């Protein structure tokens, strides 16, 4: 008898509401509140009516005075609309790391380094009381839904020492970070005794923007004013443009987002099901189409592929700051009698936010300012310029199977991925011992992981360019170190909620039950062990760089930015 298929209800967009507690009364109230009251209900598609967006993609949050709503440097997936009360945005100087729940960047001193000679005898995952003490200026409480809320204890002192600006009912914030996957640029806290905010998850914000011209224009204006101008100024191909030309360019650039913002969970699910196929990734640019613009990746990653037989062959992947389509447009500009279409397909991997400079703008504003040498350099990706958008198979520095391996596993996300050359690795575990010695007898990685040929990617935090683990940390404990950008966890403010560990697509974060110096488990008032998230911190406190890399006697282990394929190729050929 043939097996009968399992029949389930087809998953729908709003199967899981952002806040199941949203009531009809809440939605009615929002429908009567600007800007929603001004939105043309009839312009919303039938599948995503305004009312349902508000019911399923928003949540009304109530904050008390001093509570931190968003932290500078955090990654977030939602924007906020102030419904009542007031908040303040910190302008200058920034709040110190300790008030944001973070560790102040520091290196171990001579005596602390030397003390590691005997600290190896400490019980595993043990902490001294002072290690778990956080800034006294910071308080925490649990709200009615058991979510942790962090607040500033001494608000007058903060207001006295930092220049802030008030935001009141009707003001939006956090929309750029939510839509473009950029870190939050400022810290915002509640200034009034109570404030009511509407949190809108990014999917809802995207749908609202599609149907509301007013909101789209508002966000478009803010984006162009706050984020775009500085980005364009720092982009090498626009270096010769004058201030006026840059301003003109900023008004004509289009921006778009592709893929799924919550790609981590999706990636884990697809990887488990074994259905990671490039054909499923959203197409940004199709091979053979007319080149209607240069694509600049602002955040996320994209796969460059080419038709090969009945399928597609991956030629490269590009990340933030890199270009696609430049060479075709430059070629057509120089040889209008011999135009070429896009030579390759560009697909979003996970979540991709990008800017498109239309061909007409490129031809009128940008290309005339570039010399012949620059035109060929940008097209060929040399001298630190963006890599080629049209790499030839022979020019790809990495073997095709290795490239597929890196792309399928999303390893290009790592800025300090632990790669091991299995032809050189004697499996001596000196790297693991060095890691344990440097972290009070607690190794922070596994010398094991997926491999392709002689290349193994070990199970260690890769310090991702797109750190999905940082989305949703309620206390800011997981953060980027301000100097070199390593992703680190502050044990003092980690509450063991597992958000980061669940988010990490590479299973590189582990939850551990912590002990005191005597080796006894530390328990909460509910007599359950206290959990802390742990992972590789790239030996951020030690001198000389990652201990694992320094400890390998055979040069078999390297911490590498896998978005730089040239370096990987050089390392493999060494």
């Amino acid at each position, binding site marked *: 008898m043939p097996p009968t298929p399992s029949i389930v209800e087809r998953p729908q967009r709003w199967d899981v509401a952002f806040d199941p507690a949203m009531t009809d009364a809440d939605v009615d109230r929002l429908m009567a509140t600007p800007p929603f009251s001004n939105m043309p209900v009839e312009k919303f598609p039938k599948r995503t009516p305004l009312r349902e967006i508000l019911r399923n993609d928003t949540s009304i949050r109530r904050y008390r005075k001093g509570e931190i709503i968003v932290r500078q440097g955090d990654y977030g997936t939602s924007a906020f609309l102030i419904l009542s009360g007031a908040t303040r945005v910190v302008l200058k100087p920034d709040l110190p790391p300790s008030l944001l729940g973070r560790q102040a960047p520091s290196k171990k001193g001579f005596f602390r*380094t030397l003390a590691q000679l005997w600290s190896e005898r400490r019980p595993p995952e043990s902490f001294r009381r002072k290690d778990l003490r956080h800034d006294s200026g910071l308080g925490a409480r649990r709200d009615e839904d058991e979510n942790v809320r962090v607040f500033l204890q001494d608000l007058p002192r903060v207001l006295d020492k930092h220049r802030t600006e008030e935001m009141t009912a009707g003001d939006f914030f956090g929309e750029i970070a939510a839509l473009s996957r950029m870190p939050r640029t400022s810290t915002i806290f509640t200034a009034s005794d109570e404030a009511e905010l509407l949190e809108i998850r990014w999917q809802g914000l995207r749908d609202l923007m599609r149907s509301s011209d007013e909101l789209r224009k508002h966000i478009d204006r803010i984006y162009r004013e706050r984020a775009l101008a500085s980005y364009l100024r720092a982009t090498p191909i626009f270096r010769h443009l004058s201030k006026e030309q840059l301003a003109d360019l900023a008004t004509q650039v289009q921006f778009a987002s592709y893929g799924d913002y919550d790609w981590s969970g999706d990636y884990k699910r697809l990887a488990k099901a074994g259905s990671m196929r490039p054909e499923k990734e959203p197409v940004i640019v199709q091979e053979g189409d007319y080149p209607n613009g240069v694509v600049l990746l602002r955040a996320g990653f994209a796969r460059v592929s080419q038709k090969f037989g009945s399928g597609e062959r991956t030629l490269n992947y590009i990340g933030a700051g890199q270009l696609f389509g430049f060479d075709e447009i430059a070629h057509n500009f120089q040889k209008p009698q011999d135009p070429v279409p896009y030579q390759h397909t560009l697909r979003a991997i996970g979540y991709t936010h990008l800017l498109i400079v239309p061909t007409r703008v490129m031809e009128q504003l940008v290309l005339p300012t570039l010399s012949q040498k620059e035109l060929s350099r940008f097209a060929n990706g040399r001298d630190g310029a963006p890599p080629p958008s049209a790499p030839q198979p022979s020019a790809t520095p990495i073997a095709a199977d290795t490239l597929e391996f890196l792309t399928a596993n999303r390893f290009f996300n790592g800025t300090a991925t632990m790669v091991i050359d*299995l032809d*050189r690795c004697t499996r001596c575990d000196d790297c693991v011992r060095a890691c344990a010695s440097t972290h009070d007898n607690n190794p922070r990685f596994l010398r094991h992981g997926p491999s392709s040929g*002689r290349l193994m990617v070990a199970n260690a935090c890769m310090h991702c360019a797109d750190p999905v683990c940082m989305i949703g940390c309620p206390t800011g404990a997981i953060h980027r170190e301000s100097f070199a950008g390593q992703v680190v966890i502050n044990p003092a403010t980690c509450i063991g909620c597992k958000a980061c560990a669940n988010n990490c697509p590479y299973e590189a974060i582990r939850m551990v039950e912590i002990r005191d110096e005597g080796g006894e488990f530390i328990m909460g008032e509910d007599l359950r062990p206290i959990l802390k998230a742990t992972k590789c911190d790239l030996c951020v406190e030690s001198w*000389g760089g990652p201990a694992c*890399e*320094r*400890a390998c*006697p055979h040069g078999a282990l390297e911490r590498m930015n896998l978005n730089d394929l040239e370096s990987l190729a050089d390392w493999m*050929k060494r």
Partner: protein
Amino acid sequence: MSRFGRQTVVGTFLLLLASAGVVIAHRRWSEELPNYAYLSGWVLMAVMILLALYNMRKRLPFLSLGSSEAWLQIHVYAGFFTVILFLAHLKFRMPTGWFEGALAWLYILVTGSGIVGLFLSRVLPRRLATRGGEVIYEKIPALRNALRQEAETLVLAGGPQVIANFYTENLHDFFRRPKYFWPHLLDSRRPLNAIVTELDELRRYLNEAERTTLEKLADLVRRKDGLDYHHALQVTLKLWLFVHLPLTYSLMIFSVLHIIIVFAFSGGAR
């Protein structure tokens, strides 16, 4: 030229240069310099201390003492350099007396085990990467146990009697512990081929369904063989250090005793 190739060329050139310097110094000073034995001895001791310091560097990975890779390069070339220093200190003659003989033998064993270790660490990793997947050494017993249980469930729980008998007589011990250490170390597949051939012989006694069981068993045998291959190679890569290190400590102790004896009894060595 690759980085490793460049390292080898530079290291070999420096080694040859230093060795030539020792030979020239020996020719010029061995007879003329009254304290030549002291000089060559102290230089040899200094290089030996440098070699021994590598182990200390490995024990203090949290200190910023340079990369272990650079230390190993120095260790290897300085180790080769001690050969010429050792011979110069002996004045290119055979050692005399039991203490000097023991010291010489210890030196030979330490140097020999070092060279063997270097050879193994360059050859075995490549082989590990080609067979048996990637296995963490400490997990091998658990994986072996899991394979044994899988094989026993397959064969003994409702499998054909022919296969059950074959398993009991020929494969029970194979799945129970690591096997064929030396063939694996020498990269011989003869034991695996022998088992697979014997399994193939059983096919004629089995029906179609039972042959499927046999094929699954053959697959488990191959996986176990791959595990044994990793065990043999990884244990060799770990064990040679357990020979090299105790010998090194013994050599250092004997060398210190040698120095004490020289100063206590020589009254001015030449």
